[in-house]
């Protein structure tokens, strides 16, 4: 067991527990202080760990931009679950999305970064904001009662951080494992491996064959429309069905104009 990691996890649990909204005696400042300590400890730990791995595997090391975006992501995710006002939660979620888009660009997933911003920040979050404004509590209260309290914060934090601690301990103990050896060796192998994988056993895609010169979007498109063509169509159907269902669910419950059987859609 890695005690430094365990201590950092416990500190994180404490800070989330303090930051969660509670009715009386808010401890946000203490929680934020502990949270900053936790993040600093986590970064130091990662730095030390990456330094240790540097000798074992090439190219290990901590990217400055990874640290930056990861910090923004974790802080804004914490703010989403801890902020008492739902609208601010939604805005912090947008910040989380932007940070993750930055991380995706670091991972050579530029298309996914843009898609994430368009779909999450542009579509899903706008829907959330609309619903938050539609379903605001009556009267002139700024924060509803149920947003000031949480149920079982101790239990939730304990269970979740035991899970997190276990996962992290498993990941950060020991040396790089043997499954690395099975990986294609370099950039040249990539395009080849992809080509073989995508085109294996398939009638020839007329054009274009995946090569190492293709861009990320092209490779993604070929992958989606050859290997995952059927799931992609099913996903489209699922999305249509769910949108129609959402419209039906959220319809106003108005009395029908005539008797049943007039061809009108049934209300609830």
């Amino acid at each position, binding site marked *: 067991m890695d005690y430094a990691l365990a201590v950092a996890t416990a500190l994180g649990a404490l800070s989330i527990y303090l930051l969660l909204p509670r009715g009386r005696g808010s401890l946000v400042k203490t929680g934020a202080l502990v949270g900053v300590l936790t993040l600093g400890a986590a970064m130091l730990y*990662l730095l030390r760990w*990456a330094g240790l*791995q540097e000798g074992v*595997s*090439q*190219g290990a090391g901590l990217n400055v931009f990874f640290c930056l975006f*990861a910090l923004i992501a*974790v802080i804004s*995710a*914490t703010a*989403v*679950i801890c902020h008492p006002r*739902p609208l601010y*939660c*939604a805005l912090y*979620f947008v910040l989380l999305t932007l940070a*993750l888009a930055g991380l995706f660009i670091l*991972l*050579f*997933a530029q298309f*996914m970064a843009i898609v994430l911003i368009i*779909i*999450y920040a542009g579509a*899903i979050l706008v*829907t*959330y904001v609309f*619903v*938050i404004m539609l379903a605001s509590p009556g009267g002139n209260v700024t924060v*509803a*009662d*149920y*947003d000031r309290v*949480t*149920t*079982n*914060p101790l*239990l*939730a*934090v304990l*269970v*979740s*951080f035991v899970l997190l601690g276990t996962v992290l301990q498993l*990941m*950060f103990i020991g040396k790089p494992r043997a499954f690395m050896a099975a*990986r294609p060796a370099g*950039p040249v192998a*990539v395009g080849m491996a992809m080509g073989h*994988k995508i085109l294996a056993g398939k009638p020839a895609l007329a054009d274009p064959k995946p090569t190492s010169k293709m861009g990320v979007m092209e490779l*993604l498109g070929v*992958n989606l429309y050859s*290997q995952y063509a059927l*799931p*992609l169509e099913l*996903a489209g159907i*699922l*999305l249509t069905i*769910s*949108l129609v269902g959402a*419209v039906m669910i*959220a319809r106003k419950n108005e009395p029908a104009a005539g008797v049943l059987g007039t061809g009108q859609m049934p209300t609830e």
Partner: protein
Amino acid sequence: MPVMSQAVLFEYLSLGAVLFVLGLIGFVARRNMILIFLSTEIMFQGVAVNLIAFGRYWMNMDGQSFVIFLLTIAAAEASLALGLVILLFRRRETLNVDVWSEMQG
């Protein structure tokens, strides 16, 4: 694309785990129905980080393809969930999930 070392992969995986756990806490602890669904979106994001990091590590596009499906599911879930939230809000004029606690088995 240069090869990604396993150490870097683990950094991304730990970030994904942290995001997932934060979403889990929000899902269990918060009372506001909208925020509960927002917490599931945080969990989705954590999984998306994992998938894309693995795809980058193994040098194939499967991770990114899976994230596209994940975004589809997230959009479908958000639309249905928010429709239900609107419906429930019309019934009781509150977003508190405890109001519906008589539904427990």
